């Protein structure tokens, strides 16, 4: 199975309310409610941890679900939020903009080293 990374979009506002999250799209102010499992995925979506690892460590550890089913559901859920611009999805780790800039600057600097 190919790697799958998820990161929270910076273009949303989100608040935990009890076990759930309410997420607002900055594009059209649409509200999304994430249930308890969705909330766990949301909080773990750091762009660095593969989804499979998040599912194994966070979902399967807390909820009565087998790993394959949980991962399939998590991918489907992530793609759904990705289509709405709520989550970023990638087959490679997703760096936050600042880190990305630093990383690019470092790459440029490395290229310039004789």
């Amino acid at each position, binding site marked *: 199975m190919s790697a799958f990374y998820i990161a929270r979009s910076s273009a949303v506002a989100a608040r935990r*309310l009890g076990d*759930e999250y*309410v997420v*607002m799209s900055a594009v059209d*102010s649409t*509200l999304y409610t994430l249930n308890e499992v969705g909330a766990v995925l949301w909080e773990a979506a750091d762009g660095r941890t593969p989804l499979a690892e998040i599912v194994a460590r966070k979902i399967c550890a807390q909820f009565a679900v087998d790993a394959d089913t949980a991962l399939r559901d998590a991918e489907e859920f992530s793609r759904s939020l990705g289509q709405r611009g709520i989550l970023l999805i990638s087959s490679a780790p997703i760096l936050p903009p600042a880190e990305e800039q630093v990383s690019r600057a470092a790459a440029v600097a490395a290229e310039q080293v004789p």
Partner: protein
Amino acid sequence: MTTPSITSAAGTQTARKKTWPGLTICIGGLPVRFFVEDADFRALLAGRYSSFLRPDIRSDSDIEFEICAVPPGSLPGPEDLEVRREGAVWLLGRGDFRAEFDLRLRRGTLRLAPNPYSVDTLLRIVHSLLLATSGGVLLHAASGIRNGRGFAFSGVSGAGKTTIARLAPAGVQLLTDEISYLRRDGAGYRVYGTPFSGELGLKGEDVSAPLAAIHLIEHASANRRHPLKPPEAVRKLLRNTLFFAQEPELVHSVFATLCDLAGHVPVYRLEFQPDARVWELAA
């Protein structure tokens, strides 16, 4: 010379304020002072907002607007309400008024054909912007105080706000039948009276009380009340929130306030029939 003003027109405020009498309208504890050139219009405003007038004592933290009367039909710009920001300055307008407002300097100018409804609209917009940055919202809701506790009844047009207000029993002090003013207050929220009235034409009262509950109202064949989980409450409250700006930063502030509100104040779905017993169920 550097003029610390939002526009060249606003830059003349200081000189004009010395000659134009001020009128301070305080809603939700936030005073907005108007310097009005036209004495008749000033008297009209004083009558309309009589319950919300404050002694005209200047404070640097107050919002100040200079009102210039113009002939009807002479204002450029769109007929529909427009609220947008250019840099630090908010440009607000409709066919009947144009305003520029620097939220940072808390100063603005308003040009209008003398009409108190234009001032009413301006006040709603300005307060919605102020509240967005200070933990409050304007909510489409009737509200009242009973036994020292505030209750809001929120719904879109036709949901029954005016009906609920009409059904209020003796001892309920009605705050509004149209737009309620909610602000963070310590560990909870307060609901304030507003001059923004609906069909009842209430003048409103400058009073407030701790907000005990919000009811999202709908007509039904019986009186029933159902508690809402905070996420659903936020979703429904957002629909009933009066907010005019599109800036993501402010929209997110309103969203954060609604989340906080739903986490601190019980929110119910209230089905009701036009029967005074609904107040016994709700308050």
